[in-house]
C-alpha cells in the first residue's frame, strides 16, 4: 500500500521513528502471534534543520508519577485554560505564561507538525565540554608521528572554551600538568597496579570539586582551571600542549626480541576515569583512547608480552582457551559503568595490524555511547579523516556531538516510564526500543482507539546549552482477529528486519552462534506461516504480500553477515562491526545487512542489481557498499580496456566517463560517512575481488564445527546456499502442515 510507505517516510522524516508495526495489535497474545514484536528504531537527535528550538521550558503533567510533556495529542480546553494529559488523563491548568493561548493562537507544542519539538532549558550555568586524550606511546616512530600530528590538528578543531587534558602511557602512565609557563610537569603511575578512584585523586592532589555531590550542577568554566591543572581551556594551553604533543617520544622501555611492548592500558583508563570522576562528575566529557596494540600488563591485560602466545581467536574462545578474557572484560565493564554514571563517554581509536583487545574493551564505548574506530595504522587517511569527522559541524556550525543524554520513554497505561542514560549521542545515533502489549486478550480496545508513546531526551548540546527534545507519537490499535490484513499492510519490513537483526546480535553476545541462527530462522518461518498466502503443502503456491516481500531476503543476508558469522573475522573485528551495527540509523543498518550493489554500463543509467554472482558481467563496473567497505569492481572486458588505455584517447571520452562515474557516486559516501569506509578498487581476477565475491556467492569456505540443521524437531533452513535455494526451502517449511 503506497499510503503506508508515505506514512512511514513522513513519520521518519518528522520524528525519527520507524515502527515495525504501524497498527498495533490490541492484546498481548495477538502481539506474540505477530512474531515480530511491536518495536521501533528511534533517532533521538535526528538532524532537523527546519526545527528551530523554542526558548522556553516544557509544560509537564502535574501528576507525580507521570510528568508527561504537553503534546499535540492532549485535549485542551482553551477557555478554562486546562489540558488533559493523554497518558494519565490528569487535568492540568496551564501555567500563567500561557494565559494568552486560544484556538487561533496555539503554542507550538500543541500543533501536530510539532510532534517533535526541542526546548532550550534556561536554568544552570553552561558547562564546558571536556576532552581527555589518553595516548599509547608504544607505537612505531612513523605511527606516533602521524598520531601526534592528528592530535595537534584536533586542537584547532576544538571549541576554544573546551577543557583538554593529556595522559600518555606505555609501561608507565603519565598524567600531564598543563600550565602556561615553563617546565612541563607530570605525575607518573606504575602500570601494573590498579588504584581506586580515591587513591588516584589523592595522588593527583585534586581538591574536592566545588559542586561535588550536587546533582547536575556543573562547575563554571572560570572555576575549573583554578583547581584542575590537568584539564585546562584550549584557548589558554594550546601553544604549550601543541609543543608537548610535538615532543612526545616513544615509550622508552626497550622491547626485547620476541616480545610485545608493555602496555598499561587498564591503569591508564582507570586514571582517566578517576580524574574525571573527581573533578567533573555530571558534565559532558569524552575520554579519547588511542592505542596501537593490546594491553599487555596490569589490570585489564588481554595478552601477555610473549609474541609466541597469540592473542585469542574465536576458536580459542570456543575452546575456553582465552585466559584473560573474563577478567579483562569484567575490569573494563566496571570502568565503563563508572564512566556512564558520571555522564562521561569513552572513545577507542585502535590502529594496528593485529588485534588490540576490542573484544574486552568494547563495553567502554558501548555502554557510554563512545566511538570505536579501527584502522591499520595512525598514518592512514582512514584514521586521519575519520578522526577529523569526530569534530564535524552541522548546518549551524555546531559540533555533531551531544553529551549526558537521558532518554525517557513514556507509554500509556500500565507501563509508566523507563529511563536510559546515553552519555554521548550524535545525530545518527539510533536506539532500538521493544514494547510489550499488556492488554488482556479480548479486552476492549483502549479508550481513544490509539496508543501513544512519548520520548523525552534531555542532553547537553555541543554549544553547552541544556536541551530537551520531545517526540510524541500515536498509532491506532487494531483487533488482530478482524483486522489482520490491515495490520499486515502496516508492516514496515525494513524496520522489522533491522529490529530483529539487533535482537539477533544481542543474543549472539551470550548464546552460541548456531542457536542464534536457529532462532532467526524460526522467527522467519513463523512469520511466513502467519502471513504467507499458500495452499497447504504446495510450496509453489506460496506468496507474500508487498509489505513483507523483501523481508526474507534481509534475513537471508543477515544470516550470512559478519554480525552473525564470526569465524571469518577476528573477535576484535566482530566487536567492531557489531558496535556500529547497533547504533546506526535504518538506512545504514540495512546497508550493513544487505550491501547495495549498483551496475554501471554503456547501456543506460546506473541501476541497482541483485547481490548475486549473476550480476558480475565482463562489460559492467560494479559498485558495492557494505558500509565498512566501498568496492569498485571492473568486469573483465572493462579491465582489459582500462589496461589498453582507451580512457586516454579523445574519441573514447565516454569510456573515461564510465570509469569515473562510480568514483563520483561513491564520493558523497566517502565524504560523509563515519567511520570512513575502506576503499577497494579491483577487477576481475584481482586478489581484492574476494570482497565482492564473498558477498555474492554462497560461502564455500564456511566449514564450521557445528552441524546445525541436523537436530531432530526444530525445522531449520540450510546454510551455504544461494538466495534461490534458501527461498525454496523456506517456502517448503512454511507451507508444510507438519511444521
Amino acid at each position, binding site marked *: 500500500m503506497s499510503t503506508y510507505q508515505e506514512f512511514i517516510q513522513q513519520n521518519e522524516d518528522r520524528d525519527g521513528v520507524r515502527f515495525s508495526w504501524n497498527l498495533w495489535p490490541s492484546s498481548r497474545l495477538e502481539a506474540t502471534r505477530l512474531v515480530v514484536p511491536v518495536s521501533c528504531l528511534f533517532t533521538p537527535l535526528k538532524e532537523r534543520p527546519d526545527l528551530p528550538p523554542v526558548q522556553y521550558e516544557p509544560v509537564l503533567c502535574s501528576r507525580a508519577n507521570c510528568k508527561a510533556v504537553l503534546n499535540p495529542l492532549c485535549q485542551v480546553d482553551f477557555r478554562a485554560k486546562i489540558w488533559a494529559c493523554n497518558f494519565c488523563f490528569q487535568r492540568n491548568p496551564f501555567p500563567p505564561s500561557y494565559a494568552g493561548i486560544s484556538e487561533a493562537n496555539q503554542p507550538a507544542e500543541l500543533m501536530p507538525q510539532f510532534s517533535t519539538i526541542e526546548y532550550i532549558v534556561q536554568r544552570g550555568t553552561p558547562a564546558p565540554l571536556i576532552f581527555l586524550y589518553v595516548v599509547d606511546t608504544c607505537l612505531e616512530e612513523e605511527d606516533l608521528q602521524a598520531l601526534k600530528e592528528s592530535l595537534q*590538528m584536533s586542537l584547532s578543531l576544538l571549541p576554544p572554551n573546551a577543557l583538554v587534558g593529556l595522559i600518555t602511557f606505555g609501561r608507565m602512565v603519565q598524567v600531564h600538568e598543563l600550565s602556561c609557563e615553563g617546565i612541563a610537569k607530570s605525575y607518573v603511575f606504575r602500570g601494573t597496579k590498579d588504584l581506586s578512584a580515591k587513591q588516584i585523586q589523592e595522588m593527583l592532589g585534586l581538591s574536592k570539586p566545588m559542586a561535588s555531590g550536587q546533582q547536575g550542577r556543573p562547575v563554571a568554566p572560570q572555576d575549573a582551571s583554578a583547581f584542575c591543572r590537568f584539564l585546562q581551556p584550549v584557548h589558554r594551553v594550546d*601553544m604549550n600542549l601543541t609543543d608537548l604533543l610535538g615532543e612526545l617520544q616513544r615509550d622508552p622501555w626497550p622491547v626485547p626480541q620476541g616480545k610485545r611492548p608493555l602496555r598499561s592500558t587498564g591503569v591508564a583508563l582507570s586514571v582517566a576515569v578517576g580524574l574525571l570522576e573527581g573533578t567533573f562528575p555530571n558534565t559532558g566529557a569524552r575520554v579519547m583512547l588511542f592505542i596501537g596494540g593490546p594491553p599487555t600488563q596490569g589490570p585489564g591485560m588481554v595478552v601477555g608480552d610473549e609474541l609466541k602466545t597469540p592473542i585469542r581467536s574465536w576458536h580459542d574462545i570456543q575452546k575456553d582457551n582465552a585466559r584473560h578474557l573474563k577478567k579483562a572484560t569484567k575490569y573494563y565493564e566496571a570502568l565503563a559503568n563508572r564512566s556512564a554514571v558520571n555522564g562521561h563517554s569513552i572513545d577507542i581509536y585502535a590502529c594496528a595490524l593485529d588485534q588490540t583487545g576490542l573484544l574486552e574493551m568494547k563495553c567502554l564505548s558501548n555502554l557510554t555511547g563512545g566511538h570505536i574506530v579501527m584502522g591499520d595504522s595512525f598514518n592512514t587517511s582512514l584514521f586521519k579523516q575519520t578522526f577529523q569527522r569526530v569534530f564535524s559541524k552541522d548546518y549551524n556550525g555546531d559540533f555533531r556531538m551531544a553529551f549526558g543524554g537521558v532518554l525517557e520513554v513514556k507509554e500509556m497505561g500500565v507501563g509508566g516510564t523507563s529511563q536510559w542514560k546515553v552519555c554521548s549521542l550524535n545525530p545518527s545515533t539510533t536506539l532500538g526500543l521493544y514494547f510489550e502489549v499488556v492488554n488482556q486478550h479480548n479486552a476492549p480496545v483502549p479508550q481513544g482507539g490509539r496508543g501513544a508513546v512519548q520520548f523525552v531526551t534531555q542532553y547537553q548540546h555541543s554549544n553547552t546549552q541544556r536541551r530537551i527534545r520531545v517526540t510524541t507519537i500515536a498509532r491506532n490499535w487494531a483487533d488482530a482477529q478482524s483486522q489482520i490484513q490491515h495490520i499486515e499492510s502496516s508492516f514496515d519490513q525494513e524496520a522489522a528486519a533491522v529490529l530483529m537483526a539487533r535482537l539477533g546480535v544481542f543474543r549472539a553476545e551470550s548464546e552460541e552462534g548456531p542457536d542464534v541462527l536457529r532462532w532467526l530462522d524460526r522467527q522467519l518461518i513463523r512469520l511466513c506461516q502467519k502471513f504467507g498466502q499458500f495452499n497447504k503443502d504446495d510450496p509453489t503456491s506460496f506468496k507474500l504480500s508487498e509489505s513483507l516481500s523483501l523481508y526474507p531476503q534481509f534475513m537471508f543476508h543477515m544470516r550470512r553477515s559478519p554480525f552473525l558469522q564470526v569465524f571469518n573475522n577476528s573477535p576484535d573485528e566482530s566487536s567492531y562491526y557489531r558496535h556500529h551495527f547497533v547504533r546506526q540509523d535504518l538506512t545504514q543498518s540495512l546497508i550493513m545487512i544487505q550491501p547495495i550493489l549498483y551496475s554501471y554500463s554503456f547501456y543506460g543509467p*546506473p541501476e541497482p542489481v541483485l547481490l548475486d554472482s549473476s550480476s558480475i558481467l565482463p562489460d559492467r563496473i560494479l559498485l558495492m557498499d557494505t558500509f565498512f567497505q566501498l568496492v569498485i569492481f571492473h568486469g573483465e572486458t572493462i579491465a582489459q580496456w582500462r589496461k589498453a588505455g582507451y580512457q586516454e584517447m579523445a574519441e573514447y571520452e565516454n569510456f573515461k566517463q564510465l570509469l*569515473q562515474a562510480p568514483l*563520483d557516486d561513491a564520493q558523497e559516501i566517502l565524504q560523509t560517512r563515519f567511520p570512513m569506509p575502506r*576503499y577497494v*578498487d579491483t577487477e576481475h581476477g584481482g586478489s581484492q575481488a574476494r570482497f565482492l565475491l564473498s558477498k555474492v556467492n554462497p560461502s564455500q569456505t564456511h566449514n564450521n564445527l557445528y552441524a546445525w540443521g541436523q537436530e531432530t524437531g526444530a525445522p531449520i533452513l540450510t546454510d551455504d546456499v544461494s538466495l534461490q535455494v534458501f*527461498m525454496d526451502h523456506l517456502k517448503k517449511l512454511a507451507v508444510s502442515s507438519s511444521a
Partner: protein
Amino acid sequence: GQEKDKYIAPSAERGWNDPPQFSYNLQNARGQQKGHLTRRAAPPTSSAPPTIPLSSNPLAPPPCSLAPPPRLQGKKQNCFMMKCCHGNNRSDGFLTAGPPTTTTPPVQPGSQEEEGGGDQTQCEPDVEVVLSSLNRALATCRQSVKDQVCNDVEKRLLLLDDSWRAGKLSLPVRRRMEALSLELRAGHWDSANEIHRSLMVDHVTEVSQWMVGVKRLIAETRNLNPELLEQLQDTSVTDQDSDLLQG
C-alpha cells in the same frame, strides 16, 4: 593546480585499501545528503535461478583480440552518474534517465584561494608582506596581552619565517598563509580562523610547528579593545596604499 589541493588519491603504500583523502574545504562543503546509492533490485519471483542476460554488446570481442569500447558519437552524451539521473530514490522501478549531462568533477565551493582573484597568473606570495602583517598584529597585541604569550607567538612566527625562506613550505601553504594574513588585516577573524583550520587539516606536517602561534595571534587580535584594533587597522591601510604606490 587547485584540483590537487582538494583530493588526494588513495595510496597503496599507506593502509590496506586506504580511502582517498579529501581536503578540509571539500569535506565541509557537504550539503543535504541526497543518499543516491540506496535502491535495491527486486528479488527474483520465480523459482528458477536468475538467468545471465545475454549481453547485447555488439562489440563482443572476437576470439583473438580485444575489441575497443563503444566510441563517443558526436554530441551524444552519456549519463553514467547516479547524481544526474537521480529521481525519487524510494521507488522500486527502473528509473528513466533524466536529462543527460556530462559528468563533471564536483564543483568546488569558493575556496579561500579563489576569493583573492582566481587568475592563474597570481604572483608568488611575498613572505615579507605576510610576515609583516602578522608581526604588526603581534606588536599591537603586546600592548595588552601577557608577555609570555606574545613571546610564544613570536617564537612561532620566526619558525614560520625560517621555514618559508628555507623553501620548506609548499605553494598551497604559502598561498593560504597569504590569504590568512589578508583576512587578519581586514579584521575577518572567522575567515582567518577557517584558513588556519584548513591548513592544520590539510597540511599538518608542514605547519604544526608554528600554526598554533598564528591561531593564538588571531584569537588575541580579535579580542583587542576597539582603540587598539583601530590603531592596527589604520596602519594596515597606510601600508596597503604604500604597497600600491610602489606598484
